[in-house]
């Protein structure tokens, strides 16, 4: 079967190269790219590490949907349902023969470095902007009920692969928008009973670059390889802010 792969360095317009790869049951897109690199073209650039969907290295646009290459079965990308539209994502239609070839391109919303590798700097800049570390309270072992852990896990499962960031139409337009992963991380600290600055954190996202920038396209939750739901976190944070405002105005009156 064929892979149609976008090639080029940062400033180049993409050119596409076709590679023929063997169809082996169980093969993933990452396996296919490694096959190309090992046997046909060692100039092809792409990031990878764990091959088990835990390290977040291999995010790329596969059949125009952002996904992890290691978690995506090659055969499944020949099926028509592999081309689910991601709503509002500003990437062109067509350009490949679905069912005969798999289209592989770099993640959108981030600048390409080489071939399928993108510059993650803006993504990690947003991550760092939300102070992504627990602000400790005193005490050695904090007790925490398991249901709280379960709620936290919805967000701590994030592997920071930037697949959500690249699927978000707001990140595509607004350079300052923190984006789904950073906002999910921010929310994770707000609901962590061990954190000393939870209301400060809620306030940190209280702007159009934060909670209020989201338009609930929900692409983030749709493409997340780990089942994280940043849209849900954003909705909850907005609700907290509304309720806090109501509580304060009640106190005032």
């Amino acid at each position, binding site marked *: 079967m064929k892979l149609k792969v976008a090639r080029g360095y940062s400033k180049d317009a993409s050119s596409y190269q076709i590679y023929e790869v063997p169809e082996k049951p169980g093969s993933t897109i990452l396996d296919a790219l490694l096959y190309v*690199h090992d046997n046909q073209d*060692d100039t092809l*650039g792409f990031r990878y*590490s764990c091959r088990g969907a*835990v*390290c977040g*290295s291999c995010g790329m646009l596969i059949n125009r949907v952002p996904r992890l290459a290691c978690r995506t079965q090659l055969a499944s990308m020949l099926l028509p349902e592999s081309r689910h539209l991601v709503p509002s994502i500003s990437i062109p239609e067509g350009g490949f023969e679905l069912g005969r070839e798999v289209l592989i391109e770099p993640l959108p919303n981030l600048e390409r470095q080489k071939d399928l590798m993108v510059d993650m700097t803006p993504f990690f800049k947003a991550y760092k902007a939300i102070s992504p570390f627990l602000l*400790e309270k005193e005490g050695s*072992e904090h007790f925490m009920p398991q249901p709280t852990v379960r709620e936290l896990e919805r967000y*701590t499962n994030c592997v920071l692969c930037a697949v959500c960031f690249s699927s978000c139409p707001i990140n595509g337009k607004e350079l300052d928008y923190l984006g789904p992963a950073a906002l999910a991380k921010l929310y994770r600290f707000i609901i962590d009973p061990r954190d000393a600055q939870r209301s400060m954190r809620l306030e940190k996202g209280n702007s159009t670059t934060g909670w209020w920038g989201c338009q609930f396209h929900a692409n983030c939750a749709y493409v997340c390889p780990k089942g994280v739901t940043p849209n849900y976190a954003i909705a909850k944070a907005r609700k907290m802010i509304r309720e806090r405002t109501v509580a304060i105005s009640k106190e005032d009156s």
Partner: protein
Amino acid sequence: MPAAITDTRHHDAIVIGGGLTGLRAALAANGAGADVAVISKVHPLRSHSVAAQGGINASLNNNKGEGEDSWEAHAYDTVKGSDYLADQDAVSFMCQDAPRAVLEMESWGTTFSRDDEGRIAQRPFGGAGFPRTCYAADRTGHNLIHTLYEKAVQAGIEIFEERFVLSLAMEGGRCRGLVALDIASGEVEAFSSKSTLLATGGYGRIFSRSTNAYINTGDGAALALKAGVPLRDMEFVQFHPTTLFGTSILISEAARGEGGVLTNAVGERFMSRYASKAMELAPRDIVARAIQREIDEGRGQEGGYINLDLRELGREKIMERLPGIRQIAMDFAGIDPISAPIPVQPGQHYSMGGVACDVNCRTALAGLYAAGEAACVSVHGANRLGGNSLLETLVFGKLAGENMAMDSAAASFDDGAAKALANSEQLRLKEIRSTQNRTQTSKLREELNRTMFTDFGIFRTALRMKGGLAIASNLANKGESIGVGDKAKEYNQALIGALEFQNMSCVALPICMSAIAREESRGSHYRTDYPKRDDLRFLKHTHITKRAGEHALTYADVLLDRWPLEERRY
């Protein structure tokens, strides 16, 4: 001729590797006032630590119903699990420090799973007398490394990502820094330091079937070997009993800790014949051999695997305690463990051996330190217990960082060696990129992988190993004149692959030599031609040192100051 390199970056302490050990060391060195930098060939969150699943051991004693746990009990289990090859001072230090290390991570934000009373939950693990493995579902490594990276961001630690370390700079009997390739730009950079830590993880990718990430190519061991620093106990390679059939992705021991059972093709719970008391929770070396024996003797499933059956656990427990395992089985084998058994086979998992260091993480070369899987201190001896590797990263990472900061205070910079080395390394890389003699790295790597797994696998014999050593030596020679098709300077991943192959093939040789010399069976090193442990001849650490191109093999005593030798029964 490329332009000469005259710039040098300076840091008191440089940590090579951005996994759990490296980040913990950097935080400790930074906390002790040193100017520290981390150099990693990937972004730290892409390090293999992220893939650790089952948990981290500490005698927190949160399971009161099970009796009284203690650091001594933890240490005893570790020593017995190591088949008495671990150094007992190092084991005692680690087990005593374990509760502090776990509670520290909890206070820094790691979301550990909890028991009914909100305490950190603990589950049973192989070879352990108490349920002392703390966990964050089955994503413990992921949760720990994200916490440490968050702390590193908070502390403002300088991290040089996607730098491949080429060699260590030495002058006057000290390590003076290193030379690294910036993968993005293709430029060679000189780093000057007062102390340097090898925290590069293991060498699993030398073997064909490995749970390890592609990046685990033994880079730290190779750097040490080139610098004349001894490697210790390299013959001890852990084969994990349960890796997913076909992809070798790890299926955590937690699956058995939570009650999963192993069955052969006739539906028998065969562990009763190998470890009648501990059953599936015998240590990994024993369970891996049992599974391989079942397969070799024709009681495996077609294709060569056995079943790991979690169905008895039920949906709720699987979803709560093993959600990652379920996801892996579904994504990579199309199987939901709630309704069907998982096909598993043993695969390479962990490197017990590594860069020889003392209990303070100091190596034989002044200014050079080693910790974590890259090191051999030794706390795992001939076989590591599940849950002890994450613990080792935190305990010895911290200790290494503190010692580096302390030692750096009395040391000074010397840039000469790193600068000179940078210029020669630049020429070496240019040679690899420009040579017309293009070797296909993948073909060499595949042959090395196959040789190591078949000839230095779960069952070993002199005959096979000697054949394997000849092949590995030949491959190491070929690796020296390697060439690549990619001629570009920027983002040349073919070049990185070639350099990694050089590291893998040069680290393979000490594994082969140590294994051939050890004429006994101990822990993970099982010789069908010498099936018994031989304490008289081999209750010793193997050391391999490379000097002037020649490997020298010597032995060193094991420190047994507390727990006397016993026969290992489970």
